[in-house]
C-alpha cells in the first residue's frame, strides 16, 4: 500500500482512502515516532528518508477525508515535532486540519482570519496563501477567491497548480475566455501534459456550446486540442471522448455554417471530410477501448470505470441516432 501513500491522495477512490486510513494506526505504530537528525542512534537505525514524511502527510490527508481525526492528529504532531511549527507547509497543514474538524462556518471564518494574520506577517508564505484561497472557495466566496488567486499568480506566475485552479474557478463562473487563458498558461509550463490539453479542449468545447458568437472557431480549436492530447498519449480515452463529442457537434453545425465565417486570426476550420474521418476514428477507437476494457483484457485495466461507462453511453447514443 505504500505506493499509494507516496502520492497525494486527492484523486484516490473512496475505497482506497478508507483502506489507507483503516491501516493508519498500524502504520503509525510501525514507523518510528521521532527521528532526530542529531541523535547518535541514527548511526544504527534506518536513515531518515524524505518519503517517510511525504507518507505522513498523505496519510494525514486520507485520515481527514475518512473522518479519522485522531490518526490525522498524530500525523500532524509528528510532522510538527520534526519540522517545527514555523514550517510553511506545516502551517498550511495545520490550517487544513482545523478546517476539517471545524463544526460550523463561524469556526471556518476564524481559521480564515488566522490565515490572514499569518499572511500579513509573511506575505511570501505560498502554502498558506493557497489554503486561504481554497478556504474562500469552500466558504462560497468564489469571486474573492478569484481575486486572491489572481494576485497569487501575479507574484508567482510559474505555479502550474495555481493556474489550473484559477482555470477551474473561472469555469465555475462561466468565464470561459479567462479559463482558456489560465489553461494556456499551464500549458506554457507543462507543454506535454496530455490531460491539460484535453482539459483545455473541454473548456473550449464548453465555450463553443454555450456562447453564440464564434462557436465554430471554439469547436475547431477544441477539436485540435483533443487531437493533440491523443497525439501525446496513445489510446487516451478522455481525448477520444472529447474528439467524438466535438466532431459530432461540428458535423451538425458545419453544413449550415457559411464558409465565410473563417476568421482571419487563428486556424481555419478543418474541412468536413477531415472531421468525418476523425469522427470515424474516434468512434472506432472508443469502441475498441470500451470492448477491451469491459472484457478485462490484460493491459487494458487502467481506465476508470466511470469514464468507460460514459464512453459506452456516448457510443450507444450515437448508434441509436444512426439507426433512426
Amino acid at each position, binding site marked *: 500500500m505504500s*505506493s499509494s501513500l507516496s*502520492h*497525494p491522495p*486527492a*484523486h484516490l477512490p*473512496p*475505497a482506497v*482512502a*478508507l*483502506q489507507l486510513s*483503516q491501516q493508519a494506526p498500524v502504520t503509525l505504530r510501525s514507523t518510528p515516532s521521532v527521528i532526530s537528525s542529531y541523535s547518535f542512534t541514527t548511526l544504527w537505525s534506518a536513515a531518515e528518508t524524505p518519503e517517510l514524511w511525504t507518507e505522513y502527510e498523505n496519510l494525514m*490527508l486520507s485520515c*481527514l*477525508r*475518512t*473522518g479519522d481525526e485522531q490518526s490525522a492528529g498524530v500525523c500532524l504532531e509528528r510532522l510538527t515535532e520534526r519540522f517545527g511549527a514555523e514550517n510553511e507547509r506545516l502551517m*498550511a497543514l495545520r490550517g*487544513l486540519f482545523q*478546517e*476539517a474538524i*471545524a463544526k460550523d462556518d463561524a469556526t471556518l471564518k476564524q481559521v480564515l482570519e488566522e490565515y490572514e494574520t499569518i499572511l500579513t506577517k509573511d506575505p511570501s508564505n505560498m*502554502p498558506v496563501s*493557497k*489554503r486561504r*484561497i*481554497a478556504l474562500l*472557495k*469552500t466558504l462560497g466566496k468564489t469571486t474573492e477567491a478569484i481575486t486572491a488567486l489572481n494576485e497569487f499568480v501575479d507574484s508567482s506566475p510559474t505555479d*502550474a*497548480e*495555481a493556474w*489550473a*485552479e484559477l482555470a477551474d474557478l473561472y469555469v465555475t463562473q462561466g468565464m470561459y475566455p479567462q479559463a482558456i487563458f489560465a489553461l494556456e498558461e*499551464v500549458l506554457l509550463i*507543462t507543454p*506535454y*501534459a*496530455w*490531460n*491539460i490539453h484535453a*482539459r483545455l479542449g473541454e473548456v473550449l468545447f464548453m465555450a463553443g456550446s454555450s456562447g453564440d458568437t464564434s462557436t465554430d472557431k471554439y469547436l475547431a480549436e477544441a477539436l485540435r486540442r483533443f487531437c493533440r492530447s491523443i*497525439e*501525446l*498519449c*496513445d*489510446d*487516451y*480515452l478522455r481525448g477520444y471522448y472529447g474528439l467524438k463529442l466535438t466532431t459530432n457537434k461540428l458535423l451538425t453545425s458545419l453544413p449550415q455554417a457559411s464558409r465565410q465565417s473563417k476568421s482571419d486570426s487563428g486556424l481555419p476550420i478543418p474541412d468536413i471530410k477531415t472531421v468525418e474521418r476523425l469522427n470515424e476514428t474516434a468512434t472506432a477507437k472508443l469502441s475498441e477501448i470500451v470492448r477491451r476494457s469491459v472484457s478485462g483484457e*490484460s*493491459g*487494458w*485495466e*487502467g*481506465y476508470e470505470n466511470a469514464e468507460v461507462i460514459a464512453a459506452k453511453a456516448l457510443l450507444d447514443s450515437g448508434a441509436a441516432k444512426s439507426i433512426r
Partner: protein
Amino acid sequence: MTWISKSVTGLGLLLLTHACYSAHEHSALHSTSTASLSSMASHTAVASTVASLPIDISIETVVAVFVICLGLVLGTPELRPIQWRVWAGKIEREGEKGFTNSDGNVDKDYVGNPFRMLESRPGFIDIRKQRKEFAEWVREGGGTAGASKS
C-alpha cells in the same frame, strides 16, 4: 523466460570457473615441472611457458563469457517505452498493472500520470467537500465492507 536465463548464466559461470581452475592448475603444474627440470631456465623461457596456455582453455574461457552474456541479456526485463506517447498511453491504458515488477509490486518510481497533480491540486484541496463526499459514499453502502472490519 527467467529460468532459461538463469540456467544459461549458471552454465556460463560454471564454464568460466572451470576455465579459470584449469588455467591455474596448468600454470602451477607447469612451473613446478620446469622448476624441477632445470633451475637455469632463462627469463624468456619463463615468459614463453606463461604465454602457451593450451588452446582448449582459451576457447572455454571465451565461450563461457559469451554464454554468460547471453544469459544476462535473456534475463533483462522488458524495455520501457521511450516515446512520450507510447509511455503516456501505457500509463493511461494499463494503470498500475503495467508497471509491476516480477514480484507483483508496483515499481517504486511509478507515479501514474505525473500531470494528474494539476487536476487534483493537493495545495488547494477542499477537505470539507471531500469529507462530505466520503460520508455520502459510505451512506450509499460503499463502506459496508469497511464498516464490518472496523
